[in-house]
């Protein structure tokens, strides 16, 4: 199986924000993290990527920030083929993308405010501009009063809010979240997801990799389901589909999945 990659330098403005064309990621000889995946995400979309652990969710997100290189295929982000990006252009790509992790990844010896400001400092912003944008980001996630506290002094939900603030402080067009609620209780998880939706409403494209069934079912957004590195389902308004977690038989016909009753138009 050989995938021919057509060399392309740029694409028109109307192109989708993200487009994967025949992407394969092979870790070792037999181990396929992603197997011939093609998917498009338009600007302003909110997409859940669901699937079991090891199904390739994280790999898909890591491809977009060039933490992982595809073995074959094209990875287009905002008009650039990330797969062929030169190392010195990676920082520029990452400045356009915010990333939120399951384990927050806050720096423990810095206050929440410093953690958020850190993302700006390392790209050369300082002084008044730095303070203004840090302040705004903390306000958006509702952490104004906790800016001077250290990560260990606040709750998990608040830590994740700070992480979200750090991800959006540079006003990226794309926000990626890898299991953002994996370490949080259901109530807090919902709050974080609402926060992400709020960010999405302001125009940022959001991709969330998760296996939090309740959240996915409650929010009724586009769902892309991965299984063993392949896309097995892509629904505009989907549910988590519990059966996928428990069985390895082929996916049930679409009629078995109850369509979303709540239709939200953004």
């Amino acid at each position: 199986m050989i995938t021919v990659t057509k060399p392309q330098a740029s694409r028109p403005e109307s192109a989708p924000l993200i487009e994967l064309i025949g992407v394969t990621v092979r870790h070792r000889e037999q181990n396929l993290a992603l197997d011939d995946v093609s998917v498009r995400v338009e600007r302003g979309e909110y997409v859940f990527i669901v699937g079991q652990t090891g199904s390739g969710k994280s790999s898909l997100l890591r491809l977009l920030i060039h933490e992982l290189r595809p073995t074959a295929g094209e990875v287009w982000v905002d008009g650039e083929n990330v797969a062929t990006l030169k190392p010195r252009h990676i920082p520029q790509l990452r400045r356009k993308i915010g990333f939120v992790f399951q384990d927050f990844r806050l720096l423990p010896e810095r206050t929440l405010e410093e953690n958020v400001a850190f993302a700006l400092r390392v790209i050369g912003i300082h002084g008044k501009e730095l303070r203004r944008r840090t302040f705004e980001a903390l306000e958006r996630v509702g952490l104004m009063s906790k800016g001077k506290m250290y990560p260990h002094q606040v709750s998990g939900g608040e830590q994740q809010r700070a992480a979200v603030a750090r991800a959006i402080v540079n006003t990226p067009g794309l926000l990626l979240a890898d299991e953002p609620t994996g370490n949080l209780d259901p109530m807090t998880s919902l709050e974080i997801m609402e926060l992400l939706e709020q960010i999405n409403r302001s125009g940022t494209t959001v991709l969330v990799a998760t296996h939090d069934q309740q959240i996915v079912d409650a929010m009724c957004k586009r769902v892309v389901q991965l299984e063993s590195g392949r896309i097995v389902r892509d629904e505009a308004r989907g549910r988590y589909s519990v059966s996928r977690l428990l069985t390895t038989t082929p996916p049930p016909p679409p009629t078995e999945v109850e369509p979303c009753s709540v239709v939200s138009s953004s």
Partner: protein
Amino acid sequence: MFGSLFFLIREAWLNLRRQGLMAVACVSTSAIALLILGVFFLIGTQLYRVVDGAPRQMEIHAFMREGATRAQATALQERLEDMPGVAVARLVTREQAWTEFRQKSSFKDVLDGFKENPLPDMLRIVTTTPEETLRLADWVRSLPEVDHVNEGKEVVRQLLTIYNVIRTAGVVLAVLLGLGTAAIISNAIRMTLFARRRDIRVMQLVGATNSFIRFPFLLEGMAEGALGGGIASGLLLAALHYYTTRVQPTVPVVNQFELDLNRLLFVGILVGGGAVLGMVGSLLSMRKFLHAT
């Protein structure tokens, strides 16, 4: 730009403080390495001064042939005095030399056995430049009334040999110690990089450039090396001070060697050398670490 620079310098300082003991190890090893470098540098420069200065102080001793008259000796002396390149030309008569020799010598009884003065007349010539010494010595040697000329060539040659050996040994040792110091600092920086891998991950994810990420670590290595150089030069200058004030005046042999050293340049060389070693060490460890992700 200055805001970022301030941030980067503070990051380097934080790294140093968090590393604590490792930084102490780095500074002390680089201090030891640079101390040895400094010692060789000092010995080398002083020896070079001796070698360089020796021919200038060397006199030409020209011994008249047996049978040459006093008039011939005086004529040569006067002739030399007028020649360019000659600072002083003095005649030491055989009588003067004999008296002087007998007074200084511990073999008075043996010398008393001589019925006649065995010494010839001698001219003591002091030249202005080393080149003149060799040129004049050759000229004087060619004269028929002169028997033997001694211009101290051998001493200079031996000193030069010793100097060359010490210089080669110093350079070899300096390179080896320099490599060792760079390796130790490189290792310490690697530990800092490891301790700060979370920060580095976050920096990379939010789009910091590699040079931005590297700068504090580079600064850390340079600071460690430079501090080591500072300590080394401090210790050496203290030792020198002790030598010049306590040892030198009391020991008769060494008090002829005058110590001459541009102290500021010396400190600059050691501190700068330390900084360069630290920088090389940092770059070595970062090359592997930062390209992995």
